[in-house]
C-alpha cells in the first residue's frame, strides 16, 4: 500500500488511473450542468432570435475576444505545467501553474470590467437595477441579458474554483510527493481545460451568434 493516498489501491499507478477516470466522470457530470443551461439559452434563442441578435450586439466584442485569448493562453500554460511535471522539472511546473492562475485572475478582472460597463449602461436586469435598453423588443432583450449574466457568472464561479485549487496546490507543493504532484496536475489540468472549453462554446453563443 506504499505510495498510495487511499488504502483501497495496491499501487500508485492504479490509483492514478482511477483519479484520471474519476475526473472524466466528474467532467461528464459538469457537462450536463452546463448542457442544461445552454439548452435553456438555445430554446430562448429559437423563440426570440431577432431580439437576441440585437441584444447580443450590446456586449463588448473586444473585451470578449481578449478574454477568449487570455483563457486559451492559460490552457497553453496548463499544458506546459503537465509537460514539465512529466519531465520532473518542478521549478518550471510551479511557474507554469502560477502563470495559469494569473491568467485566470486576468480573465476575471476583465470580466468584472465588462460587468461594470454593462451595469452602468443599464443592461443588467438583476437585483432591481435600472434596465435602460434602447433596442427593439426590450422584454426579450432583458431575457437575453439575464441569461448572459447567469451563464457567464456560473462559468466565472468554476474558474474561481480552479484558481483556488491551483493556488492551494502551489502553497502545499513542498509537502507533496512527486507521484502525488503528477496526479494533482493531471486532475486540475483536466478541469481547467474543461472550464476553458465551456468558454469556447459560450463566447460564440453569446457574443457572435447572428452578428
Amino acid at each position, binding site marked *: 500500500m506504499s505510495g498510495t493516498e487511499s*488504502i*483501497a*489501491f495496491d499501487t500508485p499507478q492504479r490509483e492514478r488511473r482511477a483519479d484520471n477516470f*474519476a475526473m472524466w466522470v*466528474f467532467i461528464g457530470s459538469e457537462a450536463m*450542468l452546463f448542457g*442544461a443551461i445552454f439548452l*435553456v439559452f438555445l430554446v430562448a434563442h429559437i423563440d426570440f432570435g431577432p431580439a437576441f441578435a440585437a441584444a447580443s450586439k450590446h456586449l463588448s466584442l473586444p473585451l470578449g475576444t481578449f478574454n477568449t485569448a487570455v483563457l486559451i493562453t492559460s490552457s497553453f500554460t496548463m499544458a506546459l505545467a503537465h509537460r514539465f511535471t512529466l519531465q520532473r522539472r518542478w521549478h518550471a511546473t510551479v511557474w507554469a501553474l502560477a502563470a495559469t492562475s494569473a491568467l485566470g485572475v486576468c480573465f476575471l478582472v476583465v470580466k468584472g470590467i465588462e460587468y461594470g460597463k454593462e451595469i452602468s449602461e443599464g443592461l443588467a436586469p438583476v437585483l432591481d437595477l435600472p434596465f435602460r435598453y434602447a433596442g427593439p423588443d426590450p422584454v426579450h432583450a432583458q431575457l437575453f441579458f439575464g*441569461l448572459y449574466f*447567469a451563464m457567464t457568472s456560473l462559468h466565472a464561479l468554476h474558474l474561481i474554483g480552479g484558481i483556488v485549487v491551483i493556488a492551494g496546490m502551489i502553497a502545499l507543493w513542498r509537502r507533496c510527493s512527486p507521484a502525488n504532484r503528477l496526479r494533482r496536475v493531471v486532475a486540475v489540468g483536466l478541469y481547467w481545460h474543461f472550464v476553458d472549453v465551456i468558454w469556447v462554446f459560450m463566447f460564440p453563443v453569446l457574443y457572435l451568434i447572428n452578428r
Partner: protein
Amino acid sequence: MSNAAMQGTYLGEGSGLRAWLLTTDHKRVAWLYLVSLTAFFFLGGAMAVLMRIELATPAGDLVSDDVYNRLFSLHGIIMVWFFLVPSIPATMGNFLLPLMIGARDLAFPRLNLASWYVFIFGSLFALFAVAAGGVDTGWTFYTPLSTLYANGFVSTAAFGVFIVGFSTIMTGINFIVSVHTLRAPGLTWFRLPIFVWTLYATSLVMVLATPVLAASLILIVLERVFGIGIFNPDLGGDPLLFQHLFWFYSHPAVYIMILPGMGVVSEVLPCFSRRPLFGYKAVAMSSMAIAVFGFLVWGHHMFVSGQSAYAGVVFSFLSFCVAIPSAIKVFNWSLTLRKGEISFETPMLYALFFLALFTFGGLAGLFLAALAVDVHVHDTYFVIAHFHYIMVGGMVTAYMAGLHFWWPKLTGRMYSEIAGRIAATVTFVGFNLTFFPQYVLGFDGMPRRYHTYPPEFQFWNVLSSGGAVVLAIGYLMPLFYLGWSLFRGARAPDNPWNATGLEWQTSSPPPPHNFETMPIVTRPAYAYDMKGLEHERFSPHREEAAR
C-alpha cells in the same frame, strides 16, 4: 457495543464521537448515513401521518389549507431527496460495494466522508426551511408558483436540495470508479452481484441527471433572489421550460430510487430459494437499459401541460418501453423461485412483498403511460397510489429486506426473527390498506393536494387513513427490535444465511480493511447450485446449544 467481541472488527476501532465523525472507513460512513436517513424517514413519515389524519374526514378540521400545502411539500422534499435518493446506495451500497467487489475501501474514502458532511450541510437548509415556516410549492417546485407566488422558504429549501445533489454526485463518482478499478482478481463484470450492477447503473444516473436538477434549481434561486426571469413570462421567460428541466432529472431520479431496491431483491431471492438467479445477464443488462430509457421519458409527466401531441405520442411509446426491462426482471425473479427450496425468513418476506407491490405499481404505470388514460387520472390519487407502490411498496420494502439481510454483517448480531416476520407482514397489510384505496379514489376523480373532499369519498379515505396507522406500526417495530439487537442480539456467524457473495466470506462484522486475505474469485455470482455450500442455515437454537 465496544466489548471484547468487537475487537479486531471495524466496530472496535474506537467508539468515541471523534472516531465516528472523522472516519474514512466506508462501513462507518454507511452508519453515519443510516442514522441520519432514519431520522429523515420518520420526520417525513410523521408529516404523512398528519396528512392522513386530516383526510379521515371530508372537512378541513385538523390543519388549514395552507398548513396542509406545507405538509405535503415537505413530506415530498424530505422523502425524495433526504431519504429515497440516498437510501440504499448511501447506506447498504456504501457498506457493501467494497465488500462485494473484494476491495479494502471505496476508491476515494475521504470523498465518501465528505459526501456525508455535504449531505448534512444541505439538510440543515431543508430543516431550517421546515422550522422557519415551510414551503408550499410541492416537492416539484413548479414555476411560476415557486418563483412568483409561493411565500414559503422556497430559496432555502431549493438551495438545500441543490447542495444535497453534490453529495449524490460524489457518491456516484466514487461508486463508478470503484467498480471499474477495484474489483478483486477473477471478479469479471459478469461475475458481479446484481446489487453491484444496479448500484453502477444508479451511479450513472446520479452523475448525469443530478446536474440538470442543479441547473434548474440555480435558475429558480436566480429568479427569486436576483430577478433574472428565465421562467417568468412577463420577462420573456417560459414557465414550462422548468418542467422539462425538472423532469429530465426527476424521472431518471425515479430509477435512482428503484434500481438499488431491485439489486437487493436480486440478492435475497436466490439466497432463500437456494437457486442461482435466473437469467443473470438479462437482469444485469435490464438495469442498464432502465438507466438509459429513464432519460428519454420525462415528457410523460407533462401530457396535460400543452406539449405537442406528437411529443406526447413519442413519450408515451418510450414510457411503455420502460416496462420491458422491468418485466424482464420480474419474470426472472419469479423463475428464480421455481423449484427452489424456499424458506420465509424476514428478508425473504420483504423481498416477496417487494415483488408483489412493485409489479402492482408497475402495472399502474402502464395505465399512466397511455395518453388517454393519463388525461383522465392526471394529478389524481391514482398517480399518488402508483408512485407510492413503487417508491414505498418497492423501494422502502427492498430497503427493509436489505437491512434485515445484511444486519448480521453490519452489526455482528442477529435480530428477533419472529419480530421481523411480524413487522414485515404488518407493513405489507398496512401498505395495501393505505394505498390500494387511493387507486379507487383517483380513478373516481379525487384530485391530489387538497385537504378537503366531497363526502362520497370518505369511505375509501377512512380505509386509507386506518392503513397509514398500521403501516406506521410496521415501520416503527424494526426501530425497537433492531435497536435491541444492536446491544443484546445473539452473535451472528460470518454467513448466517449460507449465502454466496464475497461479503459473506469475511467475518461479521468485518475487520477494518474488510478482508484478512484479499479474495480471489473463481465462481459466478449466485452459485447456489454448486457443490461445497452445505445446506445449513443459522438457527439461534443450534447456536445456543453449541455454546
